[in-house]
């Protein structure tokens, strides 16, 4: 088998999806691979009747996931909103995998996304030789999802230019896609729906028009509410990714994970966890996703250049890279943090020293 770097959710969790489908006896909406309850269990984890353990994909509020799933059952589109790194794309991928068994009907929104990418394009060779016909038509992932009654995903919706975004309006309200060149239309099959993600931190985004907004139910994914929750998310993801990348190291020390999470939370909230010291908040988002990547690169460093055990020195370099996004502003913030907070914590001496070494 060719070693795939990153597997799709439905590939990685095939076993869990199968087990869920087998035990799922509840009512399924048309064209759904499993019932909404099973989808919720798939995302949030749990034990099935036959004792099979489903791992949690999203660690956080159950209510949020329930609202997201309920939205999809009502055939209204779902918009996952939030600061970067709050698992928006992650949730969207897993929802699509669980509901349609296919998370690949994806359109990545960028400033250059055109209407053709949302609707359909043409196979020009075919078009020129035989004229316009259904065969010459190249369907977009969205159109394929409509025809097959599956879930389409639109990533970074707000990065798509406003006029292109509006193409979605007809699709979402009429549930059909006219093809005027052929005098046809593609009508969506039951089960079709759209999950879009957008972040509210980026600058230069294209605000959604209110007509489009009205066609989405919006769910805001919050940053993890407690430190413990964030630590568990980071440790879990790092372990999974380490496995995927075949890192020969030991699982990351919980102590280091906790420290990174704490640094991130403190800089994000602008105060220390005990609430005693005020800090300047950093300009970066310092999301959970970034914490995961800091630990991950630390693990890789430890594995390949160290003795395989994650230590302060291994995370220091990527930590600085993650925090200092703006070389002037963040540098000051980071330096202040080292001197006022890290230095004072006696058990953080090693990390403080490692960071100082890097600065020099």
């Amino acid at each position, binding site marked *: 088998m060719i070693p795939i770097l990153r597997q799709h959710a439905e590939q990685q969790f095939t076993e869990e999806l199968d087990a869920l489908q087998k035990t799922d006896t509840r009512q399924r909406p048309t064209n759904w691979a499993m019932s909404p309850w099973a989808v919720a269990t798939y995302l949030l984890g749990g034990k099935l009747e036959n004792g099979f353990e489903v791992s949690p994909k999203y660690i956080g509020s159950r209510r949020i996931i329930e*609202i997201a799933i*309920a939205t999809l059952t009502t055939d209204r589109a779902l918009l996952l*909103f939030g600061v970067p790194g709050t698992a928006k794309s992650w949730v969207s991928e897993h929802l699509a995998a669980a509901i349609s068994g296919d998370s690949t009907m994806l359109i990545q929104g960028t400033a250059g996304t055109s209407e053709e990418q949302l609707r359909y394009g043409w196979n020009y060779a075919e078009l020129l030789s035989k004229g316009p016909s259904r065969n010459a038509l190249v369907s977009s992932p969205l159109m394929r999802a409509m025809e097959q009654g599956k879930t389409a995903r639109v990533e970074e919706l707000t990065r798509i230019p406003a006029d292109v975004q509006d193409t979605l309006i007809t699709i979402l309200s009429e549930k059909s896609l006219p093809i005027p060149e052929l005098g046809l239309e593609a009508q969506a099959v039951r089960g079709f729906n759209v999950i879009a993600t957008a972040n509210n931190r980026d600058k230069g985004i294209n605000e959604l028009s*209110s007509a489009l907004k009205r066609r989405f*139910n919006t*769910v805001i994914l919050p940053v993890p509410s407690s430190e413990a929750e964030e630590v568990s998310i980071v440790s879990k993801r790092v372990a999974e990714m380490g496995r995927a990348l075949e890192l020969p190291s030991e699982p990351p020390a919980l102590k280091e994970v906790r420290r990174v999470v704490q640094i991130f939370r403190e800089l994000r909230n602008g105060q220390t966890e005990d609430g005693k010291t005020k800090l300047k908040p950093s300009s970066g988002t310092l999301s959970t996703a970034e914490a995961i990547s800091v630990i991950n690169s630390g693990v890789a460093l430890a594995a390949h250049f160290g003795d395989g055990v994650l230590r302060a020195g291994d995370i220091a370099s990527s930590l600085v890279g993650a925090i200092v996004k703006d070389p002037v502003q963040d540098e000051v913030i980071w330096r202040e943090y080292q001197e006022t907070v890290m230095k004072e914590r006696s058990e953080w001496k090693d990390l403080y020293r490692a960071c100082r070494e890097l600065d020099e």
Partner: protein
Amino acid sequence: MADSCFHLFGIRHHGPGCARSLVQALDALQPDCLLVEGPPEGEVMLPFVLDAGLTLPVALLIYNPDDSQQAAFYPFAEFSPEWQALGYALARNTPTRFMDLPMSCQFALDKAHDVERASCPFPNGLEARSTSADANVCTEGADLYADPLHWLGQAAGYDDGESWWNHLVEERNDSLELFAAIAEAMTTVRSEAPARRRSDYEQQREILREAHMRKTMRQAQKDGFERIAVVCGAWHVPALEKLPSAKADNDLLKALPKTKVAATWAPWSYHNLSNASGYGAGIAAPAWYEHLWRSGGTRQRAVGWLARAARLFRAEDLDCSSAHIIEAVRLADALAALRGHHQPGLDELCEALRTVVCMGDDAPMQLIHRQLVVGDRLGGIPEQAPAVPLQRDLEQQQKSLKLKPEATRKALDLDLRQANDLARSHLLHRLSLLDIGWGDLNKTGKSAKGTFHELWTLQWQPELVLAVITASRWGNTVEGAATAKAVDRAQAAQSLPELSELVNQTLLADLQAAIGPVTQALENLAAVASDVAQLLAAIPPLTHIVRYGNVRNTDVAMVNAVLEGLIPRAAIGLSGACSSLDDDAAQAMREHIAATHKAVRLLAHEELSGEWHEALQRVAHLGSSHGLICGLAARLLFDDQVENADQTAIRMSQALSVGNDPGPAAAWLEGFLNRSGMVLLHDDPLWTMVDEWLAGLVEEHFLRVVPLLRRTFATFNAHERRQMGERAQRPMQTVSRQIDADWDAARAEQPIPLLRLLLGLSR
């Protein structure tokens, strides 16, 4: 229970589901007697339950007429099971009794307990129960209900007891087995719930209450009733299921102390019913419960609720179309199905609104939360219901002045030139004299609106009924009571400022009868007052009255007379009072003098001004008092043009001369500048003098005055400081320099044609 004549119905206070089931159960049972958990003293008030003039929510108020701080409210809303039961029984002339321990005993016990606790030097923190909490809340405390529900809710996998109970009981459309299930659950909880932190005193109270309930039940049985419906809090059901020997209970209840109590109905509000108000048996969402009760179990329930939310959103200028509501209904239904509920509950509906209408944001929901979930309904009581005469008089006035008590916070702008508004103002001032805090007068200061406007913030809180009762000992009408209280306060007053404030209030409240005695008291006290600071503090409020009294049509002659006595007295004592003050005392005196000075100017009374100025001159004389005061006096005299610039310059040069210690000199300057540097900026000689004084200081002295001066200058605004800085940079004599140059006219003329062309000026 089938063989017994008792039929126990354990309910949750204010639970619409319980209420619905209870009505059905009563219909099925057709009881010949109804016992309700409530104070027996309230039975006399029962006939008003069916009165058309009564609008819910209301509370049964039981209070001690001798000490109205001791009071208990038993609130009822339309959806309260007890209320429905009372209505059911009274409409059928079924005998109805309250069975709780009489409040007369409870008050007496509370009092005894308070005395006991007060005598104990180290009260146990956990036990501390404030009497005010007792007054506000029916004794059914949070620990009796919130706790077991929470415990059961968590056991059932809910976030909290409230949502568990809502889904299981209140939001269902009921079955008759409900009561058996509740009784069973409570029996388990009472026997197994973890020991909660309750004092012996509270436990003892519960034992007594339940003993009395059983006693009432036995009495009903003895009276020959055969189908007795007993409606009580679910918590008490297990204790009432079996009746032990009558003797045990009677022994418990023997020889309990008693006090006098009176009962009445009081209008109540949804806010007070919600747990946010601190009411122990409070509910989170009164408006939702009302909706549940009214809409029954129909499909329209969710739709009606969301439509209400839509109206509120629109009122707040937030977009919310019918399409939004349609989608919200669908989402709420889907959520309910996903969570296995038969119909969407409050949580699902709120989540649907947030997701569909608010773009996932919580802020807009917070905006309408109070109106949507809590509600701002305020009850009313029938006119014939007994109430203290003061309450009736107040209602009468509220009606005639078109000033309705409302539960929401509302701003009221009164134009005192209009008769009705003036009367309203009088009423509000009288009430605040009586400590009935209905309206708050906004401190407008000397705003642009002038003094014929008064801005009030009104909010009628149901607890104010109690304040009215407390105030009723002063008289039977608002005016009479306020007058009596003002006179009483005047006689007890010990300080002049307090009295002058009282005079002010009396005039604002237009209490003609009180003005005489209050001003008399003021004069008497002023005559013997030796504290000049107090005299000074009394002057400004009085001046205000005299100056602006006309707008209010008040008779200010008496106050004027008082002022004519006060100002000379203060003027005479001033220089004495200003001698030998330390820094703090000088600061305080400075405020008094400045305020009084302003007042005297406002009065524009020549003779009084003259006396005041003389006093200031004595104070301004150097060395007679603290530097700060001297400086201030010099400045005030300069401002009023009593002394001209030359005289002032002499004062300044004396004060700042080299011979003086720099400390007092700096203080003098601080006083003189009086928090504004303008005088320096605009008066060259003064500027020069200050400048020279500063420049002439030797280094050691300079270092000593720098902090003092910094303190003074720091109080100026940034603009003034900058101007001063610029002024200091400029040399004193700014002579405009003339530029001499040999102009070569011919060369200068050369570019002119080109410039004309560029500017488009034809020849």
